[in-house]
């Protein structure tokens, strides 16, 4: 009973942590007399892109895989999307190009891994170099100075918390459906938990890996589009920190670092919100960003330690 209770408590810990951070945020906001609705908007604005990208990335992490090129992929997708807008003047085309480009990059990574029988993170390392080079080429060929930009008024109507929330909820709904209520999610978790057993249960790990990367690409594409609506001037530094933010969010949200059967689709959203709330609280406490990073690092290690503790099995030995 004790162990069951401990397991339940540990699995509920990320959500409880987020609620606690929310309460702390409200308490400090009241003490410091900060405009709460404005700050809440800010928090959503800051975290929503990470939430979208990280939710898609859960499909990769569930497989026990890792994609280091998410940030670069998002940057390229946003640049290509912006170029498409500048050519056509259509926001819909821009959205389609952002998503298409990101999915194409993801597909390339996973198909290369599949064809050459390589661990997929190896191809994502190669993609990272390639995409970084592509960013420079695109900016040089199509940009003005060091940036590519679209008119701010073209997307100003979309730069609202409501629209971003809608995009997130639609994507999140799709992910919850496919992850929790379709074969895809079960199969991905099983492949992540034991690839050999999955193969001997008739699952095609390569195919599932490709689908997982497509889902992640979809998230990256939507993230790229939302990035343009938020900051229509794009540079080589666009989405520079998203890769690390995604990892931290997923881990903060209680997802096992090794993926597998205990992966949760909600982890990314919970983690991203928690992380932003934590940053806001530290800002309110006037802690400088260096200390903030150190606190995040410490919490990151703590969360990984606790999640591993949860997975350390006190098994009935046969």
């Amino acid at each position, binding site marked *: 009973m*004790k162990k069951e209770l401990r397991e339940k408590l540990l699995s509920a810990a990320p959500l409880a942590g987020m609620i606690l951070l929310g309460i702390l945020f409200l308490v400090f906001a009241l003490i410091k007399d900060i405009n709460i609705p404005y700050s809440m908007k800010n928090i959503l604005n800051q975290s929503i892109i990470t939430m979208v990208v990280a939710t898609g990335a859960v499909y990769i992490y569930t497989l026990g895989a890792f994609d280091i090129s998410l940030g670069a992929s998002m940057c390229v997708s946003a640049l290509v999307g912006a170029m498409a807008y500048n050519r056509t003047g259509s926001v819909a085309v821009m959205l389609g190009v952002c998503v298409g480009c990101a999915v194409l990059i993801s597909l390339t990574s996973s198909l290369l891994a599949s064809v050459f029988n390589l661990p997929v993170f190896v191809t994502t390392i190669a993609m990272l170099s390639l995409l970084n080079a592509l960013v420079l080429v695109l900016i040089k060929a199509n940009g003005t100075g060091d940036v590519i930009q679209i008119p701010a008024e073209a997307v100003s109507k979309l730069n609202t918390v409501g629209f971003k929330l809608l995009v997130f909820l639609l994507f999140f709904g799709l992910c919850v459906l496919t992850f929790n209520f379709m074969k895809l999610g*079960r199969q991905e*978790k*099983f492949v992540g938990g034991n690839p050999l057993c999955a*193969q*001997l249960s*008739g699952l095609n790990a390569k195919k599932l890996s490709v689908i997982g990367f497509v889902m992640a690409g979809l998230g990256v594409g939507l993230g790229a589009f939302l990035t343009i609506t938020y900051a229509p001037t794009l540079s080589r530094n666009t989405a520079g920190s998203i890769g690390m933010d995604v990892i931290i969010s997923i881990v903060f949200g209680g997802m096992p670092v090794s993926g597998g*059967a205990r992966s949760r689709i909600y982890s990314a959203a919970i983690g991203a919100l928690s992380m932003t709330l934590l940053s806001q609280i530290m800002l309110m406490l006037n802690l400088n960003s260096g200390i903030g990073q150190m606190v995040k690092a410490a919490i990151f290690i703590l969360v990984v330690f606790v999640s591993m503790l949860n997975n350390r099995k006190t098994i009935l030995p*046969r």
Partner: protein
Amino acid sequence: MEMLEIRNMHKSFGPTIALNDVSFSAQSGEVLGLIGENGSGKSTATSIYAGMQTCSSGEMFFKGEPWHPVSMNDALKRGVGMIVQENGTVPGISAAENIFLGETQEYVSGLFVNRKKMNRDAQAALDAIGAGHIRAEMMTGMLDFQDRKLLEIARVMAKDPEVLVVDETTTALSQKGRDIIYGIMNTMRKEGKTVIFISHDLDEIMEKCDRLTVLRDGKIIRTFEHEEFEEGAIKAAMIGRELQGSYYRDDYDGEVSSEVVLAAEHLNHTDQLSDFSFELHAGEILGIGGLSHCGMHTLGKVLFGNEKAESGSFTVHGRQIRNEAEAMKEGIGYVAKDRDTESLCLEASIKDNIAIAGLDKIAVHNAFILPSRENSYVDAQIKNLRIKCNDRNQYVSTLSGGNKQKAAFGKWTGRDSSILILDCPTRGVDIGVKQAMYQLMYRMKQEGKSIILISEEMTELIGMSDRLLVMKDGKLQKELFRSRQLSEADVIEYMI
């Protein structure tokens, strides 16, 4: 002299009481057998004694002194070694490194590890137990299940323990491997040391042990002195009732349908299969037997589409099989020998494991999973196979060996497979579960389903098969038909 003693030991895993006031002892120069159904507490009690885990309460003594090992390595250094049931080796390092796992510092000279000396000592340890065919410098992952088990034995025996726990190890081994263990047990007995021998093979345990302690549901039921050994009494003590009906099937007509469901022609695969051809009929239990390396385990994988034959072909219902998914589409199910690695995802629940092979049956429009539909699919398997568990969401890692095996079976019975390839299906399974599995196999045969039974247990092959193919060096050595007169000696003659 009393070598080991356990007094009033209790152990709980959450709501599961694994050991309830367990007390027993073993003398020097004695082989004490521990027997009981899966989940009866044999492995739990001995693994606590060998330092793998701690007990909730109770006392332990080694040579009359209180005994509190902090780890398996600590216990081994102080004279108590254990060979575990499942894989206890690390695949990504050499055989020598596995033998001296955690002791590499003893081979460090200056900044470097003296691998030459380590390999030499490891080879000596392997030679000493009669496993000299394993080279110490080989990567462990390249060894098969039996050789990895022998590696574990060498690791333990290299420390010259005074108490050795052999936990359900022999069923993973061929006769040669078993002979190695039996030899070690005899030597230890002669040297005044102690062996705790856990096995589900009643004949084996009655032959090799001096005394026999029976556990059931975490309690000691009875200890039999050697002169009291009697199969019926031991079985009754183990399961708390008389076994109803026959153990194996009791018909001898070997009748099968003329319909060929699987036909293999001239299969060749490395040195494991050589021009191997056979047919499987509807309603047939086809036994495949031989020594561990004869190729029978590879045959199972090839027939499930997991390994590709280099030449030759096989068809199921007239269609060629290229991979596992195609095999499943044709109604083939496969229970692998290496249960924890190949048949189950240990970190997943019973539900996840059973449902995974049947998602196409469960899913609506082959895509959407309705929780109620999935739950009833899984619950039906839990009920049919009598899997002992708290609920369907229990992690498979927390089940006993026999119940894990039932969960592995449940994957394929759930999707109503018409051809089952069972590779050592009753390995590490107690007699109660074994009987239930044999009855299930027989029921499937009567329903017109076909079973390929790959096994290293000759009594099982003879007891259950309509036809028995004996393999040697990847070749079909002999085809034997079901008969009352068929004996182990008849089979052995063609195996070796």
